[in-house]
């Protein structure tokens, strides 16, 4: 495997060629926030939260391949402002009521809001009228909380088509839908848990399992999102 030299935040690193900027940064212990990205499935760069300054241009780190002599800035003041704004827009766009949500403490969107110290979005809330699909015996989809990251669709599709979930509608009417026939045939508790874990927010939830992890033991209770990357990072 050939090596490249890449400069991230003013420091030069050696990395394997063919990897995305996000992966390289992670390997060297630099956290770039993500939402639509999910480890192991092909990136799509739709949420834009991983936007970095790459050779002077704003590009998504999850879809930009790292190249030799590339210069990357991951955390300028402007970038952090852009990311905070994206998080605020997502909160204003849906109905995200953290106090009663069972993903609270395990939610990536909430964790990012804490990271960016969001008190209240600068934008007016949309308060869309959305429903909850609870017809499946194993899982339910709460459209109020869905951020349309498509992780649930992409994850299954990459492994073996077709997916349990599909997009329905277009534009602001787009929703995730369940393929009930397929899920009824294939789903067990383990797969239901996997589907829930794939969702970054509380849109896909397992039935009758909520709040069983006590406060203090949830994913982001003690360390903010991204702490794990900083801990495991080793400078090459």
């Amino acid at each position: 495997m050939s090596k490249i030299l890449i400069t991230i935040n003013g420091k030069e690193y050696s990395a394997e060629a063919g990897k995305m900027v996000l992966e390289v940064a992670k390997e060297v212990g630099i956290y770039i926030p993500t939402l639509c990205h999910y480890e192991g499935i092909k990136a799509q760069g739709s949420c834009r939260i991983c936007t970095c300054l790459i050779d002077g241009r704003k590009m998504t780190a999850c879809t930009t391949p790292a190249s030799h002599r590339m210069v990357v800035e991951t955390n300028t003041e402007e970038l952090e402002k852009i990311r905070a704004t994206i998080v605020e827009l997502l909160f204003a766009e849906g109905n995200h009521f953290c106090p009663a949500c069972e993903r609270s403490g395990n939610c990536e969107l909430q964790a990012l809001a804490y990271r960016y110290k969001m008190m209240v979005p600068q934008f007016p809330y949309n308060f869309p009228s959305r429903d909850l699909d609870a017809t499946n015996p194993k899982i339910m989809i709460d459209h109020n909380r869905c951020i349309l990251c498509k992780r649930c669709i992409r994850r299954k599709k990459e492994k073996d088509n077709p997916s349990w979930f599909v997009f329905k509608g277009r534009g602001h009417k787009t929703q995730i839908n369940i393929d009930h026939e397929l899920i009824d045939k294939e789903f067990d508790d383990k797969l239901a848990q996997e589907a829930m874990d794939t969702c970054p927010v509380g849109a896909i939830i397992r039935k009758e399992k909520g709040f069983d992890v006590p406060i203090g033991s949830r994913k982001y209770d003690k360390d903010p999102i991204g702490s794990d990357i900083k801990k495991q990072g080793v400078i090459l």
Partner: protein
Amino acid sequence: MSKKITIEPVTRVEGHGKVTIHLDDNNQVSQSRLHIVEFRGFERFVQGRPYWEAPVLVQRLCGICPVSHHLAAAKALDVIVGAGTGDGLTPTGEKMRRLMHYGQIFQSHVLHFFHLASPDLLFGIDGDPALRNVIGIAIKHKELAVQAVMMRKYGQEVIKVTAGKKIHGTGAIPGGINKHLTQTEKDSLLNGDDPMNIDKMIDWSLGALEFFKDYHSKNKDLIDKFAAFPSSHVSLVRKDGAMDLYHGVLRGIDSDGNKILNDVDYQDYLQYIDEEVKSWSYMKFPYLRSIGKKDGWYRVGPLARMNTCDFIPSPLAQKEFEIFQAYTNGKPNGMSMHMHWARLIEILHSAEMMKELLNDPDLMSGELVVKGTKGREGVGLLEAPRGTLFHHYRINDDDQIEMANLIVSTTNNNIPMNTAVNLAAKQFMNGQTEITEGMMNAVEVAIRAYDPCLSCATHALGKMPLEAIILDSYGKELDRKLKNG
């Protein structure tokens, strides 16, 4: 010429409250009403949500007693998930919830008595409002203020180790609890550094009772006569008649002590209790069906619990209970200000129960959750600090809540609070054309005996936004007094 005095807002209890007092041509109080004029709607917006969300969602009704709503909802859902009613949980599940509940009663009662009510006792109903608040207590009675703060903190710590957070935790889940007590948590609550340990809390609870009894002996007129009236009383009691704040059967007695609800299963509460709606308040008016709308109202809360139970199952509180009972020769006690006395006995009882539970090994290991055959409907009752709290849910085939009915303690006390307000208004305003701050506070003292949620702003800051207006029968303003928040 008849007049109407409006006190608005009285501050929040499930929203915004106001009091209107009507004076007749001779400036005599003809009618007083406590209006709850803000609509909350929790029963409506919980519909469609997954049922396991209810204990976490509905507790947001309140920031003082969220644990009560959290546990009442969880108890109702225990029935739905087939874990039975109250005693069907695993020992760990039930005891952790009980510990949470006693922590809640302890901290909430401490807040109610020390922070909110004691300024009226120590500085007088018409005392200087600049001093008649918790800051005044801190300046003039420092030791008492420190105790109040530390006792409340202790109760909050108990809630934190059982629910995960001091306010709005997630500990109780349908069929049980989501955590054990750790050794560190147990040690810190049992034997923490002075004063944060359970023995100190019991000492201070006894001290608070002595303080009250001493005050009572010197101020019998205020404590025995202010807003006193006979009534029926309702609460949960343990099957053997003992006081039980977490679980039991529904018992009601009339003002002579005769049983009017004979230890019934609360799953059937709708057979015994109905709610009336009146045009002037968003708060409903519960009554016992067997007696009817007019006379079927009852009191709930610490005073009712003292009146309905046969004994208190903890030794120090039992001794105090005997003194309390002896004061009325064993007859039901209808004196509103004795609500504070009863509250202090419950503080002591809660502290004793917490000590017993903290020493129980079941809290540190054992199964957390139990489930059985799923049902569609469940009712959960418990004795919240302010009184009996009812939660009732029905779910659909898809695990969504399709019906919720909540009768909160304050609602149960609707008519009693109106009665107390009326009596206070008569005592302090009959024959008066000018309203003084002391008169307005007297009305609040009556409400405060039942529910501090209505008065927290007053005593927390000493600056409750309060407006009183005297109007003549044509609506012309005769007098207006305003306190800004």
